[in-house]
């Protein structure tokens, strides 16, 4: 910022607001983290206290590792999330390119039809989806989840990406055509790199709900070997007793991979939000 425009009060206020917001946003995460390292009684007696020599305990983590196959759940969640994101981005970008680039009959109608999915929650179709999965034998496979999440993510992905792809210069694509590039090369080598910020945006918006989802894992893939992390953690939440140590520990560990993925996408994401325009 330019010195003449820098007003110390504004600067202070802006930073103050941002710090307050950060604290509020991080507070629950912080509480989960510290309590996951405490024994049960101190969790309830002093939920905000840091673990000390007396209250420190890793019993929650031990329970989590001993009960069920935590690493398998973890791996399942990761596979489902990454594979779904991959397909959402790939197919979403391809459909968006077709809608943005080619003039064909029903182009607008097709775009609207695809956008409709944004407004209709996919869970309404759960029963039909379950029937379909049963008849195709996909129940209790990770494919069931990947397919459903891909379908769930596509409408918004197509909507956002086609908007961005319309902004990619026609001249650039035409230059590629005159140089003899195929439409696939134009799509993968020229257009995709230019809409990378938008792709990152779509990835982040889709990632969290998929990672956290309980509904579809519970209905479509509740078997031991296909349980996701969220579903796996539910064993610690009982109707009468809840093993809070274990729940907090599982949650703490579930935060990690999303953080890693987020950091990977975030640079692109911020560029996507702030730049808006694609050159």
């Amino acid at each position, binding site marked *: 910022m330019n010195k003449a425009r820098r007003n110390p009060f504004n600067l202070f206020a802006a930073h103050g607001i941002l710090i307050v917001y950060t604290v509020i946003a991080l507070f629950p995460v912080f509480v989960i983290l510290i309590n996951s390292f405490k024994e049960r009684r101190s969790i309830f007696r002093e939920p905000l206290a840091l673990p000390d020599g007396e209250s420190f305990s890793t019993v929650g983590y031990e329970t989590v590792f001993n009960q069920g196959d935590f690493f398998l759940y973890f791996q399942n969640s990761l596979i489902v999330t990454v594979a779904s994101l991959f397909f959402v981005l790939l197919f979403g970008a391809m459909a968006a390119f077709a809608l943005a680039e080619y003039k064909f009959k029903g182009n607008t109608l097709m775009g609207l039809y695809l956008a409709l999915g944004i407004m209709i929650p996919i869970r309404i179709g759960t029963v039909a989806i379950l029937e379909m999965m049963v008849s195709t034998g996909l129940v209790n496979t990770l494919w069931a989840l990947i397919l459903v999440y891909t379908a769930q993510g596509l409408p918004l992905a197509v909507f956002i990406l086609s908007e961005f792809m319309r902004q990619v*210069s026609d*001249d*650039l694509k*035409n*230059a*590629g*055509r*005159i*140089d*003899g*590039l195929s439409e696939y090369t134009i799509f993968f*080598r*020229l257009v995709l*790199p*230019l809409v990378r910020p938008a792709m990152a945006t779509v990835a982040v918006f889709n990632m969290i709900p998929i990672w956290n989802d309980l509904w579809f894992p519970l209905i479509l893939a509740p078997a031991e070997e296909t349980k996701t992390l969220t579903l796996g953690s539910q064993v610690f939440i009982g109707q009468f007793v809840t093993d809070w140590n274990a729940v907090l520990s599982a949650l703490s560990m579930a935060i990690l991979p999303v953080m890693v993925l987020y950091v990977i996408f975030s640079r692109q994401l911020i560029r996507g939000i702030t730049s808006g325009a694609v*050159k």
Partner: protein
Amino acid sequence: MTALTLKNVNKSFGKVQVLHDINLEVEDGEFVVFIGPSGCGKSTLLRVISGLEDATSGEITIGGDVVNMVPPAKRGIAMVFQSYALYPHLSVKANMALGLKQEKQPKDEIEARVAEAARMLSLGDYLDRRPSELSGGQRQRVAIGRAVVRKPKLFLFDEPLSNLDAALRMNTRIEIARLHRTLDASMVYVTHDQTEAMTLADKIVVLRDGRVEQVGSPMELYNNPANQFVAGFLGAPSMNFLPAGLVGGASDTTIGIRPEHIRLSDTGRLKAAVSHVENLGGDTNVLVELADGTQMTVRLFGQHNVAPDEAVSVDFDDADTFHFGASGERLRDATVLATDALQS
């Protein structure tokens, strides 16, 4: 052999017809400029020639072959775009080489052609840079280089200088003219700038609303425009038009007179007031307003002391005038003389 022939080319987008029955020939080695106001279909015509758009009807022949069904990369053309359209992820060298690689040219041939183009366009120092590290002028030279290495039968330029500032525009214009001389290549060049058209073209094609208005050499068009539109479009400042009635002509016709053919005099036929003066040093442009509100531009050579609001009178030789009918068509001398005789 002709480099390009267009026969009855029409182009419609849905119900909107953008190009109407275009017929045209570009001879080998000729520099042809399409000129017309924005939105008249120049780019569309160029895209139809290049194959990026299909003609709705008509025949396109490049270098003797009908190419209606041939994809852009195989038509033997290369195109330079207004927005440069360089591949952002590739170096200057790779940008120029990509088309040749797609054609499966041998490596040493590619190297040689890129080096030759880089030398011609003084791009040698930038070969390893990315487009984002170049100035606008350099980017456009790379875009031109990318076209040159293909050794096309026909070059297509779509307003290549529009994004450059005035000084650079002149340099690049001279560079393109020089390129045309050294390569002896056939070129089609689209612009809305009459200076570019006049300075570069062997042949100018004036377009309006998707129709060819006139085709000819720059001086033919300047000295002998077919209609009021062409007369007004070529020449800067543009031709003055005034109702013929003001100087004793037929009431529904228009007289055209170029700014340099008008003089300010004390005894001129038309009384006027100076509304604005542009002192350019070498020239002085005086904008005057006639009693009936008609604006005229007078171009005086050298420096003159004229002040706004000054009352002047203007005059010109009738031999320098052009006559146009009510719908803008040119009235040739015979008809004009007849009406003049009728008046007197």
